[in-house]
């Protein structure tokens, strides 16, 4: 694969810290798009605000960097405007689950054909290491100097509960798997969410003695297991990876297009 053709080198160097996991996810995403043989003109990448949300600027697709938490709402308009386009929405965990939680559950419920990619580093990277709704209970952040008191969200369960028709999880340690899951999510007709555990050595790692980027990635290997594997069955404390929800369901734009055809005789 020629990765460079998908990258806007003009805008490099990127702003991510050395060792940040977000670049690994970006490269997996580019690989997924490439494996599907999509033309760059058919792909729109829309993000919110955060370190993770800087991704679209570096990618040579139609790209949009929007408001903190609101990427899925912008994406809804783009997708309804051009249902034929592939719309991918990279988000941070704060972006997706805190300020944008409402948009996330409604996008999942509507089953609009969007691919949400949550780069979950369990912290607010961009603003310097505050707690996020996915910071594990007891972990430290600049706004939880004594440890986080509230339980964290399980994004997969949140998306499942909201009606997402495709949900998957992987980590930056499992880059190849991430690429395959992203490709499957993009190919899925309907709302898909892929959670990728991504390391923020600068804040999460430092605050929680997580070690450097390599150590953090190794931890991802240790604390996760493929769904349905023996390891997962033996240790329910492990975080499962792979495709966790996959159910065909009527896609919103398809249903709306059908309505327009019935009422107006217009072809979408």
């Amino acid at each position, binding site marked *: 694969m020629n990765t460079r053709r998908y990258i*806007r080198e*003009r*805008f490099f160097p990127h702003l991510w810290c050395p060792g940040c996991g977000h670049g690994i996810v970006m490269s997996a995403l580019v690989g997924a798009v490439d494996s599907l043989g999509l033309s*760059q*003109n*058919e792909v*729109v990448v*829309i993000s919110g605000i955060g370190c993770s949300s800087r991704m*679209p*600027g570096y990618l*040579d*697709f*139609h*790209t*949009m*960097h*929007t*408001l903190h938490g*609101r990427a899925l*709402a*912008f*994406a*809804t*308009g*783009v*997708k*309804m*405007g*051009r249902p*034929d*386009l592939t719309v991918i929405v990279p988000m941070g965990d704060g972006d997706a689950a805190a300020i944008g939680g*409402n*948009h996330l559950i*409604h996008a999942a419920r509507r089953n609009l054909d969007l691919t949400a990619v949550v780069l979950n580093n369990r912290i607010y990277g961009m603003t310097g290491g505050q707690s996020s709704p996915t910071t594990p209970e007891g972990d430290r952040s600049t706004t939880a100097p004594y440890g986080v008191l509230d339980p964290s969200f399980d994004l997969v369960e949140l998306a499942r509960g909201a009606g997402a028709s495709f949900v998957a999880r992987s980590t930056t340690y499992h880059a190849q798997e991430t690429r395959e899951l992203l490709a499957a999510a993009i190919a899925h007709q309907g709302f898909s969410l892929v959670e990728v555990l991504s390391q923020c050595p600068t804040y999460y790692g430092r605050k929680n003695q997580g070690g450097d980027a390599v150590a953090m990635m190794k931890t991802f290997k240790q604390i996760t297991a493929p769904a349905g594997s023996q390891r997962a069955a033996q240790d329910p404390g492990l975080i499962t990876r792979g495709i966790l929800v996959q159910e065909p369901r009527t896609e919103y734009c398809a249903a*709306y297009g059908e*309505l*327009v055809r019935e*009422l*107006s005789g*217009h072809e979408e």
Partner: protein
Amino acid sequence: MPKETIFAQGNEAVVQGALYAGLDFYAGYPITPSTEIAEILAQRLPQAGGRFIQMEDELASLCAVIGASLTGLKAMTATSGPGFSLMQEALGYAVMAEVPCVVVNVQRGGPSTGMPTAVAQGDVMQARWGTHGDHAIIALTASNLADVFLMTVEAFNLAETYRTPVILLLDEVVGHMREKLVIPGPGEVEVVQRLRTSVPEGTDYHPYLAREDGRLPMSDFGGVHRFNVTGLVHDMWGFPSNDPAVAYGLLHHLVDKLENRAETLARYQDFFCDDAEVLLISYGSAARSALHLVEQRRARGMKIGLLELNTLWPFPAQTVRKYCRGRGHVLVVEMNRGQLHGEVQKAAEQPERVYLANRYDGVFISHKDIMQVLHVVLGKGV
């Protein structure tokens, strides 16, 4: 030749104007007194091959509208009071990213939940300054259904021409009142289409590089040009920049493209102004009562006139200054605590002659209310 004559509500006139202008996409969230706009469009848009979606809140609605506009569609949302407050962050994004769209605010009593079914014009300054940071904005208003229709078309036209969000600032009385509406036939009212780039495929297209005439041709998402859109300060590529010169240039461009054209963008009507010693200045439904008073007093020989503003922002200061010149008294008529009154005072050469007749208790201001203030102003007692 007019297409048809209907008996309609102000909110329906918005829908008619929007469809005439070529509305393709609507996203919204219900709120009184603007809800009918969403309800009617939910029915009409799919019939016309367009798209309607009820979003989870008003902020999401405007975000969806901006997204749809970037795919090349004419897009709109409508709201009132608290919903307009929620939209402010996305409104600033549309300003910064220069995305054409129309935001209707049918004003109701505020602040907060205020008086949902009562009339007010308390969002004039919010329309101007509601979103953070230095910026410019276009806000239009109207007092009758024919003008609601025309100003709605105009809102779309100006949004496309200047690549900006345009606010249509109506009020509860105008939104809910019913009167005859003559819908113009095709071609009778100008409809501006989006200016698209002529840069061919394979050649660099700069989404934020102004032409010599100041306009920025667009390219649709999904088209042959791929570019970045952001709410950060950005360069001509749409890529974030921290360069002070870029920031300075962008802010100048965003403000100047509208403020320097304030008089070109000024839409207004005058009634009996030529020899008027007393000038009323009003807008929206309040202008109906102002006109009523002017007609009544003229019949009794009083030299009184009305300047009705349809463009509130950018404020047409030169036009207002010219109209105020030489009058004995100027009376601003509005339903708030004097939000436009201050602007008129700033514009007028003799601000001490600019008075305010207002109501802000949810009751529609009547010609009698205005007359009472006029009596005091003219030194005739109450």
